[in-house]
């Protein structure tokens, strides 16, 4: 057996994030927010449209870095969460590769991107494909899935970058295809930095 995405999705998709009496959502060792997805797209697109030349390149790197750090810290919390341990880990038979499959199943179940691993060479390279993701909802004329890029690099960091928290930034991720650019799916390639 290996990790079956649809089984994980079925068991974890019933997430109901809701603020407590303080209006906060503490979970997985972090505070969660549950904002309109459009906020993130509008902010990203308007920032990119306002930045020119070298500043735009710096901005793109910073956008990926936000998701990379978030994905590394929260991803580690998720992989070690009760939900992951009870739903995903019983299906893990192929070590880190299966844990990664489980991470993308959670990534899918919780609405970030309907995605999975298309190719993997353990510890070296991974190709992710996403057939639906909120970052593709705007059509700005450029690739805009900085969140998926950062989180994908972070997941590979967690799996193959060494012990947490020292593995951050071991890997990098580039977007090679995007639904927001008219492609059938988004494609993301993770390699060593």
């Amino acid at each position, binding site marked *: 057996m290996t990790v079956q995405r649809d089984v994980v*999705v079925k068991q974890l*998709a*019933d*997430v*109901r*994030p*809701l*603020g407590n*009496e*303080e*209006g*906060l*959502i503490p979970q*997985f060792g*972090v*505070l*969660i*927010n*549950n*904002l*309109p*997805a*459009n*906020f*993130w797209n*509008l*902010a990203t697109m*308007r*920032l990119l449209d*306002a*930045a020119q030349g070298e*500043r735009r390149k710096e*901005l793109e790197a*910073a*956008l990926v*870095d*936000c*998701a990379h*750090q*978030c994905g590394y*810290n*929260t991803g580690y919390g998720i992989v070690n969460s009760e939900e992951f341990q009870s739903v995903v880990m019983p299906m893990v038979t192929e070590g880190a590769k299966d844990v990664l499959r489980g991470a993308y199943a959670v990534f*899918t*179940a*919780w*609405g*970030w991107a*309907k995605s999975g691993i298309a190719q993997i060479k353990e510890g070296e390279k991974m190709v992710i494909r996403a057939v*639906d993701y*909120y970052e593709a*909802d705007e059509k700005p004329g450029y690739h805009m899935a900085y969140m998926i890029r950062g989180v994908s690099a972070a997941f590979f960091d967690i799996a193959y970058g060494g012990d947490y928290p020292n593995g951050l930034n071991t890997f990098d991720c580039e977007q090679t295809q995007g639904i927001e650019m008219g492609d059938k799916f988004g494609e993301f390639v993770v390699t060593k930095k």
Partner: protein
Amino acid sequence: MSIKVEHSFDDQTYRHYLNGTLTVMHCHHYMALATQLAEQFADIGAPQILADAAEDSIRPMLDDYFAKNGVGSADEKLAVGVEYYAVIGMGKMQASGSEAGGQASLSASHMDQGWEMKWGKRDTPMNYWTRGYIAAVFAAAFGKPARSYVVTEEAGMITGAPESKFTIRLK
């Protein structure tokens, strides 16, 4: 008053909706880093871009809720805005005012507490996102277009203040 909260899930796209609005969960790391990024790109107006994106994404969510639930008066709309802030995990807000403006405060704040968890306290307020949120609430409550209100963060929990405080003024 207690607002209705209905979560739904699209089993084709695997997307999640809150009262019909597409929403996505993120963590305080992401929000704090996005805020830090905005400050690093102040030369292109990034803090205000963040606030305006918040205003423009929150306003349709509120207008939709008001329409679907028959929320008619300005006071009721302000109250819904305050409660919605907590529902989406951004903290505990109080707000009052009139068409001309008003005040808002936070006794719990995802932004401030998240920043502090990550980097500790700082000397200046930085809750740009909530400035945009409050602008959306007041504009929605009083039937004004976007950018009608100037929201200023006068005090921030992140600086050690017991509450974050905002003033709201009609342009």
